[in-house]
């Protein structure tokens, strides 16, 4: 089977040459080991830059809004789900995007590898099938990729693109026998005090850089509520209460929209476990309203509708 990167390049070239798209959004090699970076290709010769590997972790759907040109986008399963959400929210027209779907085996969480290396710096990393060879100043280590995937990849049920115009390579087997909400359930099982403790511990790391928000394909408000001055919803300092509300409300705003791509988590420089919130909401939306975001273009978003028989045990 030809290499995925090569197939992506060929597809991109063809699309550009045939003028079926004006722009391809994909990945190119990054400047650090285990790091790819988004790239924007407008000329077919540049398509050579495009690559595919287990560090193509960014959700490129983030770059789709407000474009006038026709766009080809390299998209993993989660990215296509984000695209569906964007289409449903009228932010992107289906006919405006050409989705180059790429089945995904999961993306590597380099922070996990770094943690394992305990301060030893990776200078070089090579992916060889299921393994990654890591080289540093005075060490070489080989690790199994699947042990160092992002949490969102571990619980992913949509490794294959949900919608696409072309699929690169063969579909991959979906995760099996995973408890998608294991982390959430574990958290739920703790005492209320412990939960509040861990939540505040997480948000107290926040430096209000808004990388989580800005990396999220669905956080596209012109003016985020934290920036609003009329009214001034919350304070702008790193006050714990304000930061907590920022994270709670941001998570709430993703209710019925979040596809758990993990972009927020990955973008956070402080390693805040943002998915603890979003995943919980995703779980509740599924359990309470039988809705999953980004799995089809038809279902009405759960907070834009209701059922007469919706749960209300919590209401007195």
């Amino acid at each position, binding site marked *: 089977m030809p290499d995925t990167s090569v197939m992506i390049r060929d597809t991109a070239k063809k699309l550009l040459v045939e003028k079926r798209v004006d722009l391809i959004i994909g990945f190119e090699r990054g400047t650090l080991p285990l790091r790819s970076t988004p790239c924007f290709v407008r000329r077919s010769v540049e398509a050579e830059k495009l690559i595919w590997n287990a560090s193509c972790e960014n959700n490129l759907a983030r770059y789709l809004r407000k474009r006038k040109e026709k766009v080809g986008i390299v998209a993993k399963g989660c990215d296509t789900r984000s695209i569906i959400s964007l289409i449903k929210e009228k932010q992107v027209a289906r006919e405006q995007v050409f989705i180059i779907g790429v089945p995904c085996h999961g993306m590597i969480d380099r922070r996990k590898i770094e943690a394992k290396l305990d301060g030893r710096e990776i200078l070089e990393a090579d992916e060889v099938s299921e393994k990654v060879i890591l080289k540093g100043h005075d060490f070489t280590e080989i690790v199994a990729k699947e042990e160092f995937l992002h949490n969102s990849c571990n619980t992913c049920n949509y490794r294959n693109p949900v919608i696409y115009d072309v699929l690169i390579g063969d579909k991959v087997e979906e995760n099996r026998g995973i408890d998608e909400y294991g982390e959430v359930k574990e*958290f*739920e099982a703790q*005492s*209320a*005090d*412990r*939960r*509040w*403790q861990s*939540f505040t511990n997480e948000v107290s790391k926040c430096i209000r850089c808004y990388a989580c928000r800005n990396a999220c394909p669905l956080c596209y408000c012109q003016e985020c*509520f934290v920036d609003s001055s009329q009214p001034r*919803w*919350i*304070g702008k*300092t790193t*006050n714990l*209460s*304000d930061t*907590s*509300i920022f994270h*709670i*409300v941001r*998570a*709430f705003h993703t*209710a019925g929209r979040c596809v758990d791509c993990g972009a927020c988590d990955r973008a956070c420089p402080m390693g805040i476990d943002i998915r603890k*919130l979003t995943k*919980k*909401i995703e779980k*509740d*939306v599924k359990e*309470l*309203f039988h809705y999953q975001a980004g799995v089809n273009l038809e279902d009405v978003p*759960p*907070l834009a509708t*209701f*059922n*007469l028989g*919706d*749960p*209300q045990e*919590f*209401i*007195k």
Partner: protein
Amino acid sequence: MGINKMQQPGQKVDGWKPRIIAFLCNWCSYAGADLAGVSRLQYPPNTRIIRVPCSSRISPLLILKSLQHGVDGVLVSGCRPGDCHYISGNYVARRKFAILNNLLEYLGIEKGRVHFAWVSAAEGKRFAELIKEITEEVRALGPAKELVKKQD
């Protein structure tokens, strides 16, 4: 509720009285509260009622803001299912509140701080009972801790 403003959150204080905000929809719950008045049904004076057109007007952010402001309890009450003056406002609200309610509990915010209820325009007695019940529940929890904004 300015009297208690200076008190440190999370601390039991002698003579402490819970502070509760109740968002009531104009057509049913606020009318129910009025009926409690007309019927002279007595309930504790700790609750401050904020009238809104419909329970669907209340966003989670307003509830969170109340908690941040330092109230010890929040009640959001709307028309019973089917009674909504705006046909489906309470159903729309119900979904949001379900998510928020679960989320707050999940984060470890004590159960009993935030309450949701349906109170119809005819339920004066129920309204009074509800306020009594919530006041007691909040009193038992003590002053609000989580999310209360302390100035650094």
